[in-house]
């Protein structure tokens, strides 16, 4: 008789239950919280809608018989798997209201890919400010997750009127071509569906991927055919020069270079040419079926199962009031398979939890801040003050660094759940070595070759935002999510105002002066901090890769996990894992 099972079944099949159903009282008193969360979601939804409507109306593209980038993605990506990224990203506040590329993670033909395409409604996919940073974040994501990058190229090249914002510089629009070379070098394939006219920069967008599949009307070329004039000896355009330009343009008959008859028939750069836009996407799907991917059975430690509690509870559990504590494991219980968690050293470093959970049956590590007050802790304070959740203390920092190191050994991808106000400060904290221990955690992260994702549930503050694998962890952080309750700043606005103006207040007070002007400045600063830390601002500036609703968090964690286990570069045999044994003791 054949018998089969998942590995280390005694450890993973049934782990410790966490969480509990919300009581009637909790539900009753949380209704206002739901409203506050929904208010933020509405603000974000309007912003997303604005970005989707950027450029010319979709109707115009449809009237020409074309597809928008959103139509293309809708056709290409497996239903229910699209997890958009960088939707609101627009760090230079472009007049277009976006960076002209649409991207995210999704499955194509059952396999995870990082997917990006030019928004052909926005200046025919021109290079605009902030776009190259957006693309670099995307190529980094494909590199970190080791999954194919899929491009839908439709790029008219530099927006001429603003070339100085895109063309030159270390991380400018040329950098993605080097990233494509890097991905190819690392064995990460890039599939490219090519539409429309792609001259110059667009040409390199076209040629730099691994597999090129073209629409019949597409071209890729070193330069466009549209430049009918150039510099003239006068150094300016006068009526005579304008007349010459008009005549030349009128008589200009040349076709765009690099068309299908060149790059399919002659050079054979294009693997396929399709006479329909959907045909190109079908070609991408065909190649996606060829991409390397393990069957999930290879790495699953249990049968996938949803959490035992509804995701909608999250809108009641996570307080919009940033000064309110909550039970962090109640959050985790709405994210992990069967609401189970194998916690590592729960009695040590109580301000953070560390441990292993299952996501879609795959083992995944979680690290997060606990909230509330911890009397009698930290031990080095000798009772002079209690620990508060969200802050980091000696034991918690040691525990996290130790856990990350062991995750590296066991090849466990890590999900960080940040809601942090910083690391403990003061002489006692310095004597307790918190400065070095914070950096030790950074060192531990960097020493692994693990993929990590970070969720800034509410606060991402001070150095703690960095050490908990914030987006600054360039080599490990695949992406960072914010929520409708996220706030990211170096410190709370009130703390910052006090730090900046306390001495001045003393001075004015001693001089017997009116304090109102200083108080006005302090309150203005608090307001400014508030406006520049809210979720939409975090998304626009790139503090996070995407703001997602609390109910969508598990979907992104599933995408992260599935992508990690699709084609891992390094494998720890499950039966040789150390962490589950250490936890069991």
């Amino acid at each position, binding site marked *: 008789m054949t018998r089969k099972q998942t590995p280390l079944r005694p450890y993973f099949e049934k782990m410790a239950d966490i969480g509990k159903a919300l009581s*009637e*009282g909790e539900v*009753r*008193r949380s209704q206002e919280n739901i409203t506050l969360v929904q208010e933020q979601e509405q603000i974000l939804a309007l912003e997303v809608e604005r970005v989707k409507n950027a450029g010319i109306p979709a109707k115009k593209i449809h009237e020409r018989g074309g597809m928008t980038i959103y139509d293309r993605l809708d056709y290409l990506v497996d239903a229910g798997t699209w997890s958009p990224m960088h939707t609101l990203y627009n760090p230079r506040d472009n007049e277009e209201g976006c960076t002209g590329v649409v991207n995210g993670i999704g499955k194509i033909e059952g396999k995870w890919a990082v997917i990006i395409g030019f928004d052909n409604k926005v200046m025919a996919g021109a290079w605009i400010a902030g776009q190259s940073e957006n693309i670099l974040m995307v190529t980094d994501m494909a590199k970190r997750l080791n999954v194919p990058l899929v491009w839908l190229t439709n790029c008219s090249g530099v927006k001429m009127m603003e070339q100085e914002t895109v063309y030159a510089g270390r991380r400018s629009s040329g950098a993605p071509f080097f990233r494509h070379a890097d991905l190819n070098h690392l064995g990460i394939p890039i599939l490219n569906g090519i539409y429309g006219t792609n001259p110059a920069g667009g040409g390199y967008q076209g040629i730099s991927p691994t597999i090129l599949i073209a629409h019949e009307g597409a071209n890729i070329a070193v330069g466009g055919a549209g430049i009918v004039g150039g510099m003239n000896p006068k150094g300016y355009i006068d009526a005579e020069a304008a007349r010459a330009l008009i005549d030349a343009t009128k008589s200009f008959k040349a076709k765009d270079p690099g068309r299908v008859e060149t790059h399919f028939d002659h050079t054979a750069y294009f693997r396929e040419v399709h006479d329909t836009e959907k045909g190109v996407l079908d070609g991408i799907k065909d190649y996606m079926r060829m991409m390397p991917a393990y069957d999930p059975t290879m790495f699953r430690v249990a049968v996938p199962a949803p959490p035992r509690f509804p995701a909608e509870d999250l809108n009641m559990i996570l307080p919009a009031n940033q*000064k*309110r504590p909550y039970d962090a494991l109640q959050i985790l219980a709405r994210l992990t398979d069967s609401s189970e968690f194998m916690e590592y050293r729960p009695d040590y470093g109580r301000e953070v939890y560390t441990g292993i959970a299952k996501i879609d049956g795959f083992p995944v590590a979680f690290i997060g801040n606990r909230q509330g*007050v911890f*009397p009698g802790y930290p031990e080095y304070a000798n009772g002079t003050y*209690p620990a508060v959740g969200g802050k980091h203390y000696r034991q918690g920092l040691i525990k996290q660094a130790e856990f990350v190191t062991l995750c590296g050994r066991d090849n466990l991808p890590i999900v960080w759940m940040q809601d942090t106000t910083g690391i403990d400060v003061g002489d006692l904290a310095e004597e307790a070595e918190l400065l070095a221990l914070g950096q030790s955690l950074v060192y531990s992260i960097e020493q692994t070759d693990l993929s990590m994702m970070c969720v800034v549930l509410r606060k991402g503050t001070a150095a703690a935002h960095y050490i908990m694998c914030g987006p600054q962890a360039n080599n490990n952080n695949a992406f960072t999510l914010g929520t409708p309750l996220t706030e990211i700043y170096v410190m709370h606005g009130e703390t910052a105002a006090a730090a900046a103006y306390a001495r001045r207040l003393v001075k004015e007070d001693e001089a017997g002066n009116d304090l109102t002007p200083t108080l006005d400045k302090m309150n203005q600063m608090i307001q400014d901090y508030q406006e520049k830390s809210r979720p939409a601002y975090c998304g626009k500036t790139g503090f996070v890769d995407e703001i997602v609703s609390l109910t969508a968090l598990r979907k992104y964690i599933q995408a992260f996990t599935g992508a990690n286990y699709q084609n891992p570069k390094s494998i720890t045999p499950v039966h040789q894992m150390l962490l589950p044994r250490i936890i069991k003791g």
Partner: protein
Amino acid sequence: MAELTSPINGKVWKILVAVGDKVELDDEMVILEALKMETPIYSEENGTVSEIRVKEGDAVNEGDVLVVVT
């Protein structure tokens, strides 16, 4: 009878009930403030507030009785 005690050293920031109020399990009764954090104190049973032993602004220690519900 249930005596609601302070879990921490802190200050009474807000008292949300009055003597004679009917309360239900998990109703918010008192909000303490400590270390810039709010710590809400919830009713542990259905009943009537029979005694409030603190007033807003009071400093309280861990274990101090705040409210009595009968």
